[in-house]
């Protein structure tokens, strides 16, 4: 009972905060709205019983990505008044495209879903043993190659970021 209530609460918070991201003007407020969305999604994950993902959501997304984003906002001059409106000229086509995309998703994907996924609205007590122990055992037993490839990707990303900064420094100097 209370689980279902909390699930609806977190889902509603995520939805409202995501909608606020589109209309807020200041980038810092947008960042705060995005952090609220991520925290509510972490709550949803925890309520679903996937605790490992909820912890990583808070640690990586809210703790690392959003802090990095907030640093970038503080570093740049966001009180830039060079543009007049917050929306580009693509506002009307964008809304039409998003609505059409949503309709296609609702029509096409929903039909293709298997029955338990489509009908289980709040049946989150079905699997209770999806804890962090089982997750890590399966992760490191079956997906260890992907784990190693991820480290290669991260090294490549770090090298690429350093290369971008080095190009900028050379252009300036």
């Amino acid at each position: 009972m209370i689980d279902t209530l909390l699930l609806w609460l977190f889902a509603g918070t995520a939805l409202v905060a995501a909608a606020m991201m589109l209309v807020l003007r200041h980038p810092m407020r947008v960042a705060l709205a995005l952090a609220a969305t991520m925290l509510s999604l972490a709550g949803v994950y925890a309520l679903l019983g996937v605790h490992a993902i909820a912890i990583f959501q808070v640690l990586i997304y809210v703790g690392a990505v959003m802090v990095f984003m907030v640093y970038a906002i503080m570093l740049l001059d966001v009180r830039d008044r060079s543009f007049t409106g917050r929306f580009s000229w693509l506002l009307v086509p964008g809304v039409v495209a998003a609505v059409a995309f949503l309709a296609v998703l609702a029509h096409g994907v929903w039909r293709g879903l298997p029955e338990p996924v489509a009908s289980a609205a709040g049946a989150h007590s079905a699997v209770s043993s999806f804890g962090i122990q089982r997750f890590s055992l399966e992760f490191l037993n079956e997906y260890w190659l992907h784990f190693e490839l991820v480290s290669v990707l991260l090294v490549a990303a770090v090298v690429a970021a350093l290369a971008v900064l080095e190009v900028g420094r050379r252009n300036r100097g």
Partner: protein
Amino acid sequence: MLISLSAVLFALGLLGVIVRRNVLVMLMCMELMLNAVNLSLVTFAQQTATAAGAVLVLLVFVVATAEIAIAIPIVLLLVKRKDVLDLGLYNDLKG
């Protein structure tokens, strides 16, 4: 319900990338799209009781981190060059 929530979140993120003009806001809307995909993956993983979806979510985390780590220096360089955050003004490549 959660699948539809994730679809709506993805559409909102897509809309934000299309309509907003600020580079940083567009980046954050891309993060929102990744979050929406994560939500659908977690829902599938939990309802089919397999670990594959959760592992995929972990890989998406890594991809999001790498993306932001490369995108923010690029944004810094762009802003250093022109001193505006409005992506509509970066039309140097327009033919």
